[in-house]
C-alpha cells in the first residue's frame, strides 16, 4: 500500500515536471504595424477635410483617426489594396492621390500630355515660320521689272551728278 502511494507521488511529480517543461503554447499576438507601414498607405490617401495634404503629413484629428483605421486594418491582415478599396467605398474616389482610370477621370491622365504635345507642335510651327520669314532674301534672284531698272539707273546717275557738282 505504502509502495503504491510512493509510486503515485513519483508519477505525479514526473508528470508535473513534464508539464512544466513542455513549451507553453502561446497565442500569437498580432503585432502593431509600424508607422512606416501605415504611412506608406497613408501617403496615397487624402482626407477630404484637409485638401491637398496627404494623410501621412496631416495632423488633424480626422486624419489621425484615419491613420488609426489603417493601422487597425493592417493588424487584421488586410492588404494595401484592400485598405484603399475600403477607403474609396467609404469616402469616395477623391481620397485617392491618383484618381482611378475610369470615366471623366481619364481627362486627368490624357489632357496634360495632349496639351503638352499640342503646345510643342504649336511652338515648332511658330518657330519654323519665324525662321523662314527671317532668312535673308537674295536680291539677285529677285525679278525686277524692266521699267524699274530704268528708273533706278536714272536715279543713280542723278545722284552721281549732284555729288560731282559739290
Amino acid at each position, binding site marked *: 500500500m505504502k509502495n503504491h502511494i510512493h509510486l503515485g507521488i513519483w508519477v505525479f511529480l514526473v508528470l508535473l515536471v513534464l508539464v512544466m517543461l513542455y513549451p507553453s503554447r502561446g497565442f500569437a499576438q498580432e503585432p502593431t504595424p509600424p508607422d512606416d507601414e501605415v504611412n506608406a498607405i497613408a501617403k496615397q490617401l487624402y*482626407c*477630404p*477635410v484637409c485638401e491637398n495634404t496627404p494623410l501621412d503629413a496631416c495632423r*488633424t*484629428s*480626422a486624419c*489621425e*483617426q*484615419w491613420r*488609426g*483605421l489603417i493601422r487597425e486594418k493592417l493588424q487584421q491582415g488586410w492588404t494595401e489594396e484592400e485598405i484603399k478599396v475600403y477607403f*474609396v*467605398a*467609404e*469616402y*469616395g*474616389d*477623391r481620397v485617392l492621390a491618383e484618381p482611378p482610370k475610369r470615366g471623366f477621370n481619364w*481627362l486627368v491622365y490624357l*489632357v496634360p500630355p*495632349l*496639351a503638352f504635345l*499640342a503646345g510643342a507642335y504649336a511652338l515648332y510651327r511658330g518657330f519654323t515660320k519665324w525662321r523662314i520669314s527671317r532668312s535673308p532674301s537674295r536680291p539677285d534672284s529677285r525679278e525686277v521689272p524692266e521699267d524699274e531698272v530704268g528708273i533706278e539707273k536714272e536715279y543713280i546717275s542723278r545722284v552721281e551728278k549732284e555729288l560731282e557738282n559739290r
Partner: protein
Amino acid sequence: MKKWLLWGGLVLLLTILALGLIRTQQGQIGVGEKAPDFKLVTFSGETYHLQELRGKVVVVNFWSSWCESCKPEAKDLEQAWRDYRSRGDVIFLGVDYVDTEPEAREYIDQFGITYPNGPDRRTDISQAFRIRGVPETYIIDRDGEIYHRQIGPFRSLEDIKSTLDPLLEQK
C-alpha cells in the same frame, strides 16, 4: 480638318474647365432652394430617403466625432429631438461626415443621441449639399425646400427651437 480638330479640342477643354470652375464657385445651397435628394443608411441599418419624408420638417445635421465644435450642440439637438419627436411631423437626421465608425458610435453613445444617424458614404450627401465643414445643419420644410441653413453649431437649445418653431407653426 486638322484646324477643326485643334479648335474643337480647345473648346472642349475650355468648356470642361468652365464647368469645373462654375461648380466650385457655386457656393452652398441657399435658403429657398430645393434640398438635394439623398439616401441615408443609419448605423442601425434603417434607410431614409429625403423624398419620402415630404410633408415633414427635416433637420439634417452634419457632424463628425473629430469635430470639437459639434460636441456642444450634440446634446441640444438630442434634447430638441426629444421635445419634438411626439409631434410626428418633424424628423432629425444626423449625417456623419468623413468619420471612422467606432469613434462615431462612441460619440453617439457619449451624447445619448437617439435620432437616426448614419455615415455619409462616399461623401455623397455632403457633396450634394456642398457643405464646407462641420457642423452644418439644414432645416428642410414640408415641401422639400431649405428653410434655414446653420453654418457652425447652434448656440443653445433655445436657438434651435426659435429657428424651428416658426416653421412648425406653418401649416
